[in-house]
């Protein structure tokens, strides 16, 4: 039977844990807000870029560019975006499970992986995959310089024919409670996908004066497009990670509260039992002496 002191100790320790989880929840909430703001700030550029690229690409009958070149997919490269840290519920597990599904579906092809985020790097390295590069500590705060570095690397690998396609596997931020596990084809760029979803058809048919040729412009636009896709994936994944951690820490805090309540109840019962026992002893002792 645990004594009163044991209960007090146990409650104190749970309270300490609860304080930590609560603090982590607030930190995650602040980071989530920052990640969402960054995602929001990046949106106008992505939107305008898409519009310019769409109108340029639709003007070229047969667009040719190394980043558009379609080859049989023999060598596949996957960018896997996980979290930088744990304590985010099933965030990393889910993403890695989705990545594994993708790897199984591409069995027989030569697979190489670039992990973004420490958790994925550790897990994939342990599983013995071919990691051709790795980026860690880049997702808690997404810097554009990193986005550019990664985009340049995969674009070069693709243009040089070292890989035949590039996919991005990441968690897309939906709501604080849920994320979409997404697999997107980054390269080759699909002109059809760029052309569709044109919300402003009017500007696509304007006859522009071109300072440079359409091909030159395309050559400059496509790398920017790849960058904006990578940036989006990184920002989404970052927001999703912070959201998952916030939710996990929230429920941890609530659970700790429940544990404290149960323990306090037991403690009070034990205390009451001790008091009752003492009273009985005094009463029975008194009755014998009278």
């Amino acid at each position, binding site marked *: 039977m645990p004594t009163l002191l044991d209960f007090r100790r146990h409650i104190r320790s749970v309270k300490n844990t609860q304080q930590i989880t609560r603090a982590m929840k607030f930190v995650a909430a602040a980071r989530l807000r920052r990640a969402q703001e960054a995602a929001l700030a990046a949106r106008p550029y992505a939107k305008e870029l898409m519009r*310019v690229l769409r109108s340029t690409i639709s003007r070229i009958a047969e667009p040719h560019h190394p980043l558009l070149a379609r080859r049989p997919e023999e060598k596949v490269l996957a960018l896997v975006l996980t979290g930088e840290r744990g304590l985010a519920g099933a965030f990393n597990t889910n993403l890695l499970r989705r990545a594994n599904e993708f790897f199984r579906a591409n069995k027989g092809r030569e697979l190489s992986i670039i992990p973004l985020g420490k958790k994925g790097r550790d897990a994939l390295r342990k599983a013995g995959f071919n990691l051709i590069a790795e980026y860690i500590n880049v997702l808690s705060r997404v810097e554009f310089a990193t986005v550019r570095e990664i985009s340049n690397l995969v674009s070069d690998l693709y243009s040089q024919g070292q890989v035949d396609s590039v996919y991005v596997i990441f968690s897309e931020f939906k709501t604080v409670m849920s994320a979409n596990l997404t697999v997107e084809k980054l390269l080759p760029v699909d002109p059809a996908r760029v052309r569709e979803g044109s919300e402003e058809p009017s500007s696509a048919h304007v006859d522009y004066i*071109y300072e440079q040729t359409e091909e030159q412009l395309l050559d400059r*636009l496509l790398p920017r497009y790849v960058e904006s896709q990578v940036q989006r994936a990184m920002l989404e994944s970052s927001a999703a990670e912070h959201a998952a951690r916030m939710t996990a820490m929230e429920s941890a805090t609530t659970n700790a509260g429940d544990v404290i309540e149960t323990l306090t109840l037991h403690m009070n019962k034990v205390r009451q039992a001790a008091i009752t026992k003492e009273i009985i002893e005094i009463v029975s002792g008194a009755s014998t002496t009278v």
Partner: protein
Amino acid sequence: MLPESMELIIVTPTRQLVRTGAREVTLPGANGYLGILPGHAPLMTELGIGELTFRGTGQTELSVIRGFAEVLPDRVTVLAETAELAAEIDLERAEAAKARAQKRLAAGDPNIDWDRAGVALQRALIRIQVARKYRSVPANSH
């Protein structure tokens, strides 16, 4: 009749800098500076490294480093890789970058990346130019 003013949007991958009405915009095109007035014929150009100025309620200068611009009769959209308002430019940092680039170019090391060092110098120079202009002529007093 030509419109009196046009909408100017300046965005970079990380933020939207400007969204305002303008009566005149000067862009640093890759093949030279372009003056844009409302009602300009539709035009698409790549941007170089240079100074972008526009007149709305006052005159505003920015340093722009590469990107694209789309001109429509009633709207100018600038997609810059990097852009900074004159007031935001850190003059000391730009001066330091200029000194670094010049040193690298002057050292005569055959292994340096000439393009990169040259571009770095150009960037620093344009930042300094824009920042100086802003400091000698305070904004909104044209």
